């Protein structure tokens, strides 16, 4: 079993109104050093061992998990720790 973590972020140049609101809130809390905030998504998948894990996950991202028009993604694959 593999643990796959997918990180999805808005593409550079795509306006992120949520990030802007978060940045403004951090400023009002006194964190003036925050020059930018961008909001993304984090998805964890438990995936049965498969010979083409990377290829399959890439396909999952392209077909559903991310929208290539507005989002970039990256993912990490590691051995799932059994609990």
């Amino acid at each position, binding site marked *: 079993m593999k643990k796959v973590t997918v990180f999805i972020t808005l593409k550079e140049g795509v*306006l992120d109104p949520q990030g802007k609101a978060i940045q403004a809130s951090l400023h009002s809390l006194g964190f003036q050093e925050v020059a930018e905030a961008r909001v993304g998504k984090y998805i964890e998948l438990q995936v049965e061992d498969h010979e083409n894990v990377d290829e399959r996950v890439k396909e999952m991202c392209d077909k559903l998990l991310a929208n290539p028009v507005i989002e970039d993604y990256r993912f990490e694959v590691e051995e799932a720790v059994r609990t």
Partner: protein
Amino acid sequence: MKFAVIVFPGSNCDRDMYHAVKEVLNEEADLVWYENSNLENYDAILLPGGFSYGDYLRSGAVAATSDVMKQIKEHVAKGKPVLGVCNGFQILLEAGLLPGAMLRNKDLAFMCHQEALRVVNNRTLFTQSYVENEVVRFPIAHGEGNYFCDEETLNDLKRHNQIVFTYENNPNGSTADIAGIINKQGNVLGLMPHPERAVEAIIGSDDGLNVFQSIVRNWRESHVANV
């Protein structure tokens, strides 16, 4: 003429859409549950607004992967009309039937009020009953109606006259004030504002009626001519 209004879990404007074509226009219409549906005998497909699958992941993303989309794509390939309103538009974008994507409204707020729109292209089967550059009033009701596409796509939309409706006072940050676009083939229209909620003057506006009348008129012209 026979309309199918596709109902997904979380659709909530399906009955408004049904009401517009069935009770106001007196055309045939069915509410069609997205599972185990057969769309073969319908002349037009309407994708209503709402929050299909609770807007999980991205608005329209989950509905866009459902089996019914395969049938909708076949319907499109046959040249039959598909109209997607609000969440229906988001589903069409996610399914790749229209270019671009939706972002959160620029001020983050969910907006629900009437907007003035310009009919910039009245040479489509959905807008032929309007006058070119006519300004109409439809309600909007969305949190993610900020239409986004890159410059190349925008130029392509302009070049092929695919921008059909624009906002007079852009409420949500949409690229080029876009409120509604059509595919190159001219049979898939997506728009964020709700024409189906503007079909009776007594509830605020009947400016939306011409969208449905245009579809019917187009269908009558091509079918009566064939008899």
